[in-house]
């Protein structure tokens, strides 16, 4: 009997502990992913586990929620839900158990009449508990006391909005620490409107920047050729209204915009309205892959809400695919979850997100429920590790990154963290190794500079010794050489002049004379020219694989033999053929062989510069990259000069004639390429057409 009683009581004990915000559910109805450095989606562990949907019954409401549009957590123990359809505010504890609700909002003029705000899209609470409701449909902001008495109503600030006749359709509101009211109106794109605590309009804040992309330039040119009617029909270039904002503990205002314009998607504004968000290598937020659909059908990330938690993690709500993206404060994607649908963790119409005790809550305005997501061990580990990095606490940092790496070997993020940790510890060699794995060129360069410095400091004696040794060896060999062949400098040039293999070096220093001799005495050689072009190809390939990591933007797997061949041999052939063809038009005297030799021989300085750069790229850091630029510029200028003088000599043009012929040759190259592409696309379309025809015949 006692046993039965005990069982009975324990069951009651267990039942009493039931919290609606948790249940066993480990099915995730979508694949979680992250983006690798090539911006391809890669499978990743689940960061947040979908739990259950909390409906009105679970909260304990008798009147069900009807189109709730916004919710706020006060950071302590109270959650406020703006139940827009019922024109009320529901107040619950942080486990979403009903506490109370404010159903009537006595009007300013007549306390017996309650103000309605059906269709309101957002609200805010100040430190004293007053409500600020964005009554979107009625174009006003209602300010009430904590118990719901209306205290003030802000209507359209007509003076400030003289330039437009857009309505004051306020959707979202925010109160800063000084009690200023920030409001976003859907139709007003001058930025958020800021009101003083008394409700006076003060200024516009943080308008989105207009993008100055090529579209705008093209549109500008188009306008020049269009009639007035057509211009009127064109879309105006105006900044887009941001869709939502939030304020963090330090008073910075984060905004999100439903565009894919990278500059404006997510911004962190300081008090002056300047964007101070530190972006990582990739600026874009949301999805980076393209759905390969026709442009009008393509679905692009459209951010609707933002929540920045106390640790600086940025949560973004994407209404395009019903997804939540979580980023670190420096804009690195940590995890992603959610989807549209009718399964667990899937939304119908997500409109607001917030975080309570690490759990993420999403308000669904059509389903009239709140979806909850609990962090997994994986994302908790990441949070710990990222927070440690941010606070420069490197104690135990390596272990936490390794723990993450154990769970997710696909990710390069742990390598980044480990690199930073090693860098901070002064182990630059290890830092370099991990930055390389994380594909972090700049960070690698910084570590490399430090590593090089310490290497030089510890090995300076050996280095000086090696340099001295080489110098003496060079001096001794040259003196021996000089003893054997007197006046070697002169003789060296002579030897270059007489040998066909060394002739390119003669033209290097004596272009006019050299190429004239080449024409008159037929000193050019096809085999030498072809060898030089092949060497060009080899050096290009070498620079692809052997350029130091800091300066190498390519992956070994990106290398394409055909493309590389076209970039060297192809360009060479195109230019010579085009120049040869042009020369017949322009009365040039050069024969094909001479043109081939001139173009090939003139490449020598460029090749030498490239080779030097490959070596330099392995010992220089990013800041010293200018040296490499100088070397390349020298090589290019020298090559250009020789080419100019060479063509001038063999074609026997005037200087201006030579310049014109080169320019026309380049145009000729472009025409040849254009024709090639045209031919290719025509064939492609023909094949497409035949395939479609086949399809149609087979299926109809």
């Amino acid at each position, binding site marked *: 009997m006692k046993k039965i009683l005990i069982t009975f009581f*324990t069951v009651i*004990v267990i039942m009493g502990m039931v919290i609606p915000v*948790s249940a066993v559910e480990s*099915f995730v109805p979508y694949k979680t992913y992250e983006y690798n450095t090539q911006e391809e989606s890669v499978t990743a562990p689940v960061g947040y586990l979908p739990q259950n949907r909390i409906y009105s019954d679970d909260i304990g409401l008798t009147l069900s929620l009807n189109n709730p549009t916004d919710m706020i957590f006060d950071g302590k123990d109270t959650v406020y839900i703006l139940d827009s359809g019922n024109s009320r505010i529901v107040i619950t504890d942080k486990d979403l158990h009903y506490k109370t609700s404010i159903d009537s909002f006595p009007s300013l003029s007549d306390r017996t009449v309650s103000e309605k705000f059906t269709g309101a899209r957002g609200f805010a609470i100040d430190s004293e508990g007053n409500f600020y409701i964005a009554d979107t449909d009625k174009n006003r902001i209602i300010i009430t006391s904590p118990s719901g008495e209306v205290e003030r109503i802000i209507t359209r600030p007509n003076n400030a909005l003289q330039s437009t006749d857009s309505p004051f359709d306020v959707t979202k509101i925010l109160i800063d620490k000084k009690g200023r009211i920030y409001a976003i109106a859907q139709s007003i794109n001058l930025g958020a409107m800021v009101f003083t605590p008394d409700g006076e309009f003060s200024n516009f804040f943080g308008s989105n920047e207009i993008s100055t992309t090529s579209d705008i330039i093209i549109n500008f040119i188009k306008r020049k050729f269009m009639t007035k009617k057509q211009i009127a029909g064109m879309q105006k270039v105006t900044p887009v209204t941001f869709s939502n904002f939030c304020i963090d503990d330090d008073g910075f205002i984060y905004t999100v915009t439903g565009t894919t314009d990278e500059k404006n998607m997510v911004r962190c504004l300081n008090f002056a309205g300047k964007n101070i968000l530190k972006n990582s290598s990739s600026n874009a937020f949301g*999805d980076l892959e393209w759905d390969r659909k026709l442009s009008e059908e393509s679905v692009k990330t459209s951010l609707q809400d933002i929540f920045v938690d106390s640790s600086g993690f940025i949560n973004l709500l994407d209404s395009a695919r019903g997804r939540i993206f979580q980023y670190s404060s420096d804009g690195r994607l940590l995890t992603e979850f959610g989807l549209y649908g009718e399964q667990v963790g899937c939304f119908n119409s997500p409109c607001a997100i917030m975080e309570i005790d690490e759990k993420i809550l999403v308000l669904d305005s059509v389903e009239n429920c709140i979806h909850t997501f609990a962090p997994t061990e994986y994302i908790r580990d990441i949070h710990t590790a990222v927070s440690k990095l941010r606070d420069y606490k490197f104690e135990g940092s390596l272990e936490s990154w390794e723990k993450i790496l154990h769970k*997710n*070997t*696909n990710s390069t993020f742990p390598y980044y963290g480990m690199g930073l940790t090693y860098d901070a510890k002064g182990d630059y060699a290890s830092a370099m190794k991990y930055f390389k794995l994380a594909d972090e060129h700049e960070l690698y360069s910084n570590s490399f500079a430090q590593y090089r410095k310490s290497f030089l400091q510890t090995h300076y004696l050996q280095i000086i010794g090696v340099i001295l040794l080489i110098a003496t060896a060079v001096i001794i060999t040259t003196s021996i050489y000089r003893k054997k062949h007197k006046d070697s400098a002169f003789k060296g040039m002579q030897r270059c002049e007489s040998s066909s293999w060394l002739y390119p070096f003669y033209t290097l220093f004596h272009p006019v004379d050299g190429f004239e001799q080449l024409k008159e005495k037929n000193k050019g050689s096809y085999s030498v020219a072809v060898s030089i072009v092949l060497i060009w190809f080899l050096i290009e390939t070498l620079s692809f694989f052997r350029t130091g990591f800091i300066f190498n933007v390519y992956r070994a797997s990106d*290398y394409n*033999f055909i493309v590389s061949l076209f970039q060297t041999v192809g360009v060479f052939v195109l230019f010579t053929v085009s120049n040869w063809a042009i020369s017949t038009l322009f009365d040039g005297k050069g024969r094909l062989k001479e043109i081939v030799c001139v173009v090939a021989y003139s490449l020598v300085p460029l090749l030498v510069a490239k080779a030097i750069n490959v070596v330099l790229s392995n010992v220089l850091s990013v800041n010293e990259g200018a040296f490499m630029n100088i070397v390349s510029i020298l090589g290019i200028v020298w090559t250009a000069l020789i080419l100019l003088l060479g063509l001038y000599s063999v074609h026997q043009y005037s200087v201006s004639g030579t310049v014109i012929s080169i320019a026309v040759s380049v145009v000729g190259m472009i025409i040849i390429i254009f024709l090639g592409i045209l031919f290719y696309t025509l064939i492609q379309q023909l094949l497409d057409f035949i395939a479609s025809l086949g399809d149609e015949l087979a299926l109809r």
Partner: protein
Amino acid sequence: MRGEKVLKKKKTYRIFSLVFLLIIAVSVLENPIYAQNNNLENGSYIPYDGYKTVADNKLFSLSADMETGLFTLYQKETGKSWHSTPIDAENDKISKGPVKTNVRSQIVAEYIYRSDESHAETTQSANSRSECINSGSVKVEQVTNGIRVTYCFETVGFEIPVVYTLESDYLKAEIETEKIKEGKDSYLMAINLLPAFGAGNSEDDGSLFVPDGCGALIHFNNGVSMKQQYDEYVYGDDLAQNVDEKSNLTETIRLPVFATITSGSSLLGVITEGAALSSISVINGNGSCGYNAVSAKLHIRQLNTRVMFANNAKNKRAISRVSAIQKTSFVVRYYPIKSDENDVCSLANCYRSYLENEKGLKKKNTMPALNVDLYGSVDTVGHFLGIPYTKKSVLTSFDQARNIIEVLSDSTEFSVSGRYIGWNNSGVLNNKLPKNASPLSSLGGKKKLKKLINQVKRQGNSLSLEGDMLYFRSGKNSNSVKTIFGQFALQYDYLPSVFVTNQNRTPLRLLTPGKISEITNRFLKSFSQFTDVGISLSTLGNTCYSEYADGREKTRENQMQICVEALGKVSKEINSITLEATNDYAALYADRILNAPVTSSGYALFDEDVPFYQMVFHGYIALSVPAMIQSAEINDNFLMAVSTGSELLYTASYNSVAFLSGTRYDGIYGSEFSMWSQDAIDKMQKYSGLLKNISNETIIGYTSLSNEVFKTDFENGVSVIVNYGNSEVKFKESILPAKDYLIIGDDKK
């Protein structure tokens, strides 16, 4: 000691007798009400108004209205009447639209007008109430032990004969597909049989069971309305179609069963023939539907659509096509069972005894083990001077596999069962069809493999070698399944971000059903060089598709038969077969099922998940939960294993898998052996004792004590209570810590 035991026994007797007395008292008190409700007078059953008793046996009595074909199945033991359509449906005020007459019908037919074939998006529907009963076009004949009802749908011209007969312990409903007549103007697409048999009305208590994934319960009148009614194909969607986009993941129906559960009595439906062409369909009580019911639907024609000219905005359009009629016998058995509220175990019991008695399911007594998926070699893209080529990268060589198994079995003191994936040239993760079984030389060749097999056997562990008979990436076109449109059915990977097909990866193709047995035979023949090693056929038991290529047409039902035959042949030659998340027809051949489903698809419609799959098979076949490292929360996955007595599964690569990031294999992240070995050892050291004790015991009870605490009772008296929550709970005298479990009644411990 002995005295104590006796005392304990006495105590339990006392408790038992008390409970017994209580039950008797309650039933005596309740009985008169029972009798009134169910027309039971003097022990004999009076049929429902105007119904005629057409069959009667010890357990049941079947009575029918000889004019309309409506019938009632009376269960003598419990006194419960199961009506083919709800008897109070005329007064139903909640249902709106077609549901209103559908629930009053025994058959709902779906059809498409022939003139609409090329642009049909959905089907039309007609039900037997408005089309047949109301116009008097139903023919009812008495047959032995039952009735034959021929439903004539006059407006569309269909004739569908269905025979309902009472068998010893179930009601059998069979659509006589051979005798179906179609109209001139329309295609008959699907027949929903008894859509509201045993339906619960808006006031009843009870729940519906659907076998989605592991199984799920839908409580009566839960108020959820989905955009589309739950209607999922048994064994998953047909793979012989090209899908452009895939976003939501779902679990698959593995067992062709469904049930209506009410307190006292439940009705279990088992699709015994034609399962591969059927779906399971649900109506639930919400704002626009007053009834709760689950039923089977036979799809005798398939409708597929595809987009044409996708890259051309002007001409882009979807076209559809209807398959030829796929005649198959279609039989559904309805077992009325005595049961408690939410009692899924008795359903599982009933279904298992059906499998045992008629399909030959046997207790396999497989030795419990820690399962390890060993990845041999994968194909990656290498570059030589920028020219890409396929190279084989070794993840685990045969020697390394030996090491993994040895380390695990030594430190856990438990048997380890390995499944080697990507061990042979042709079967490296589905590259080519496995026509031969020659081990890769880069992994160590035949010699090393034999050494591995010998050592595994010597140490009491086991190993099986994977052979995927159905999928291939490169091979002959004549081996490849075609869709209804005559295109190759390509199984692409989908981008998880934007859902479209990943064009950078070669898609998989499906082997035409006609070749399955040939390939299996060839593989078996060359497999005979190995002894003492099991075979793993991951896809043969869980993949169901049709074939529409001219001259090679096969329905899903045919393909399923071919797979069953192939499995039968394999089981004759090899004593240990490992399968993966298997369908019912293949489970009979399995000694071990890896990745057995542990969740449902999590539809909002479902109120709770129940481990029905485990209830059916646990104790008969060794089951494992899905792979640990890749599961969303490793500890929850472990608890799920404990709660169902399942084995654990780890994926193993000896070498680093970091280079697989961004390739098709990136799903096995975290598989590096050194990274998870300690976790596996810790978990097995904790779990091995319990697992040994319950691995061959069936589950006889599964109750949820709260949202997060579940109790499972095993046949031998051992119970396990699992707490998934983040806070500790008290159970009897013991404290059950957060994310932990408690064992009760395990004498050995």
